[in-house]
């Protein structure tokens, strides 16, 4: 150990302290959804009691008291202001979080572990919105999300097209020559397969891109890297060994924003999901209606919903304010066994 190395360790600890504080504040905002008011003296007393038990010679009671007074007072202040929470799957720095920020920078993104958590969180009122990926130019449709969309009653209130630029991230002291493996979500690894192959790096599956970056920073495995966003480099103090490692330039993921709200906002795009009877020409009849009205379809996808039944996703350009759209929707409802307008919304393209 020398001073330089000790200082680097201190920097690492500080980064983690800040990330943990962020995590705490997000939890505080979630907790507010279950409380009538921010103030809770009983809980506060219990908390301080619990913390003081952990006092050590270096971190004594007085010091703990000072720090947590500041933390608790900030927590209460946050609970007293109105925040709109957006649930996303993954850790901070995930592409879903970047999409949420692109859609509305004023919202507070909250990480969850699964897509189910995002849907349930929005349904229960824990989150105001949820942001989930539906399709990617290289990887195709995100099955798990689309399956949840079939059954959900949530509305789509926005969409984001996010260009996905992957970075190879490593611990700052790692020699690039020693990198043997890269951790990331299988979809991200697939998008830079040629790059990894050229540089003889073995892809290792991880639950999500940002999670892989976080794991790298915390567990510091030898000879390892992570494939994740540029934002993760800053967040977890990692070095970008190479930017834009995706094999194709046009790598775009499309996200939708979910909400409980029922009224349609002004929009230029609509999404519907429907099923038809198992008979010849039923899908054609639906498409014919949209073609007849001169409506431009932007996506059509079929997903097996239950044995023998397919759910069809249809996106098109247009607004429910337009007569031709309203008429098409009305006609389509009549020739399908199940039909739901998921939403009429604005789609933004993030830079």
């Amino acid at each position, binding site marked *: 150990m020398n001073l330089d190395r000790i200082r680097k360790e201190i920097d690492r600890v500080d980064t983690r302290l800040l990330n943990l504080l962020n995590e705490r504040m997000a939890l505080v905002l979630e907790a507010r959804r279950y409380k009538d008011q921010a103030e809770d003296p009983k809980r506060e007393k219990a908390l301080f009691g619990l913390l003081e038990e952990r006092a050590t010679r270096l971190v004594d009671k007085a010091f703990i008291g000072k720090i947590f007074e500041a933390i608790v007072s900030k927590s209460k202040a946050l609970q007293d202001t109105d925040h709109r929470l957006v649930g996303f799957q993954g850790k901070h720095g995930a592409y879903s979080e970047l999409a949420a920020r692109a859609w509305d920078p004023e919202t507070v993104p909250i990480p969850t572990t699964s897509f189910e958590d995002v849907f349930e969180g929005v349904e229960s009122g824990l989150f105001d919105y949820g942001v989930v990926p539906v399709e990617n130019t290289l990887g195709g449709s995100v099955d798990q999300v689309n399956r949840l969309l079939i059954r959900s009653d949530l509305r789509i209130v926005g969409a984001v097209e996010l260009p996905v630029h992957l970075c190879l991230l490593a611990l700052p002291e790692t020699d*690039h*020559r020693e990198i043997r493996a890269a951790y990331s979500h299988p979809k991200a690894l697939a998008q830079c397969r040629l*790059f990894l192959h*050229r*540089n*003889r790096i073995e892809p290792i599956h991880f639950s999500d891109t940002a999670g892989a970056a976080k794991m790298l920073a915390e567990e510091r495995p030898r000879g390892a890297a992570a494939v994740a966003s540029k934002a993760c480099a800053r967040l977890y103090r990692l070095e970008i*060994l*190479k930017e834009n490692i995706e094999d194709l330039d046009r790598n775009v993921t499309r996200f939708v924003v979910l909400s409980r709200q029922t009224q349609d906002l002004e929009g230029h795009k609509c999404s519907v999901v429907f099923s038809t009877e198992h008979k010849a020409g039923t899908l054609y009849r639906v498409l014919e209606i949209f073609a007849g009205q001169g409506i431009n379809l932007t996506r059509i996808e079929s997903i097996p919903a239950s044995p023998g039944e397919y759910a069809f996703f249809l996106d098109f350009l247009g607004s429910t304010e337009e007569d031709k759209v309203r008429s098409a929707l009305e006609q389509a409802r009549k020739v399908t066994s199940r039909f739901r307008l998921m939403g009429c919304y604005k789609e933004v393209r993030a830079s």
Partner: protein
Amino acid sequence: MEKLRLATCNGGEGKRTVIPVGDVRIGEDFVVIAGPCSVESEAQTLRTATAVKAAGAHMLRGGAFKPRTSPYDFQGLGLQGLKILEKAKRLTGLPVVTEVTDPRDVSWVCEYADVLQIGTRNMQNYSLLKETGKVRTPVLLKRGMYSTLKEWLHCAEYILAEGNPNVILCERGIRTFETHNRNTLDLGIVPSVKEISHLPIVVDPSHGTGRLSIIEPMCLAALAAGADGILIEVHCNPQEALCDRDQAMPPDMFQSLMEKLFHLQRAMTQVERGHIPSSREAPVAIH
């Protein structure tokens, strides 16, 4: 020469190798590759890159991994230097030529550079040669400072034999009994290479002479001798250069060299076509 199956013309009138890089075709166009000896900082590299681009250079050179005579000399910025070169390329559009010294770096340097350079000290580093033979990125192979043409071509053969057909030779001066200049630039090798090999050859008068005042005449001579291009060290502020200060050319001098090269190139085209400039303009012989 019988073992030089791929590097020589083998007596036949085979096609000459032409290597497209960015907007230029090495082996067909006269290519000027200019830039600092080493990437010292982002500001220095971007300033120099902008200056050489403005003067009309076709490609940017700059070292990130520097094999130096002394281990205490500046060793280069490594991967950080490659990132700076990538930025300079984005800014100017100039393709990047940079040296690779370690076989483990080859794939990484390929991610950033358009042409890999193998330096004079590494000309016979066979594991490095083989590794660069496995990629398709063009390789600029400098002549070893003690090497004969035959030895040099055998090194090119190593790269070609591994499957990379894109080899550019670079004459950079050799060690002789003459010590007035840093090296003795062997321009005679240029037409010799042209006679027996199909590979393009460029000349590096910066290292070949090591002396700023004679770089320009040697650049012009290289063009006249039939070289396919020149590699030249330009620094936006030569006094502050961390390496090879005495041979770093300031941008204004480079600009004037580019103009002379342009005129000489036109004159050479005429001469090669048999159009001798009219007698009134031709210099009068003094008896």
